[in-house]
């Protein structure tokens, strides 16, 4: 498996930085997510995770550090979390960290709801 290494772009649309390390299972999504073709951007990310977790019970550490994302992006963030939940339930070591901007109580609430409704632990840090 290969790493995913995409630099963030800022223009009329914003795409986040994506780094996914196939050797260590360290993954990071950071920046802002308002993308012209959201499905096109996130499909390879979700597929990478499905492939990675299919290889066995390797560790998976995912860090979300997003200042803004739109609701179309949030559907795919949930898809990412669901793959990790599956890995977690299968017995794989999963760690999810989520950095929430300190003024953004709505994002905080949404991340808390992923914990409640998906049933996966997330370390939430307000920064």
């Amino acid at each position, binding site marked *: 498996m290969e790493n995913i290494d995409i630099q963030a772009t800022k223009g009329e649309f914003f795409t986040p930085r994506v780094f996914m390390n196939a050797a260590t299972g360290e993954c990071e999504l950071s920046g802002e997510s308002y993308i012209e073709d959201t499905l096109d951007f996130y499909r390879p990310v979700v597929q990478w995770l499905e492939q990675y977790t299919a290889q066995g019970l390797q560790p998976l550490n995912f860090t979300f550090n997003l200042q803004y994302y*739109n609701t*179309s992006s949030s559907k795919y963030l*949930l898809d990412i979390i669901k793959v990790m939940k599956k890995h977690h339930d299968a017995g794989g070591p999963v760690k999810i960290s989520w950095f929430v901007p300190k003024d953004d109580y709505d994002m905080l609430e949404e991340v808390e*709801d992923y914990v409640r409704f998906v049933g996966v632990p997330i370390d939430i840090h307000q920064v």
Partner: protein
Amino acid sequence: MTQSALSLMEKKKFSFYHHYINLSHEDVIVSYKGPFSSTIMYEMSKEIQNRLVKDLVAGKKVYSIFMELAQNIFNYSAEVNKFGIRNEGIGTIVVTESEDAYSITAGNLVSRRAVPILVDKCQLINNSDRETLRRLKFEEKNRTGAANEFSKGAGVGLIHIALTSAEPLEAEVAEINEQISFFAISVNVKKKAA
């Protein structure tokens, strides 16, 4: 439905003076009518961010609501500009500031058949408490496939707007003809307590 639908609209005399007076009751942050190109959306969103740095909590809310409403127009307006291979939705958006709140209002043409779906959605949202809305938002995001023929986003946007504003959604509908109606939605964001 494209611009041909518009030619069916009754041509009323437009008074720029009345338009100006209508927008003069509150301080206008941005006001726009036209095609929602990504350039225009970007410039308006930057203006909102710059003007609201003094109140970051409310500022983030107004920005997030603006982005969802603008993207709705861009993606779903029944009136479109054919610009190269891309269709840009046409609509209108106004962001104003009063003493204690910001107000975001967006409107565009929609298929008349979409109106009851939108109005029911707004009523459902306004009749739900915050906990119900949080659960509903999660369920809609979790759904695979489109919610209905008019929305690929499964209506997460409206729930997000209601949760972000923490105020009721106000909807306005004007019938234009048998195929097309005008649909507008307005929502407030309270300023931080002084």
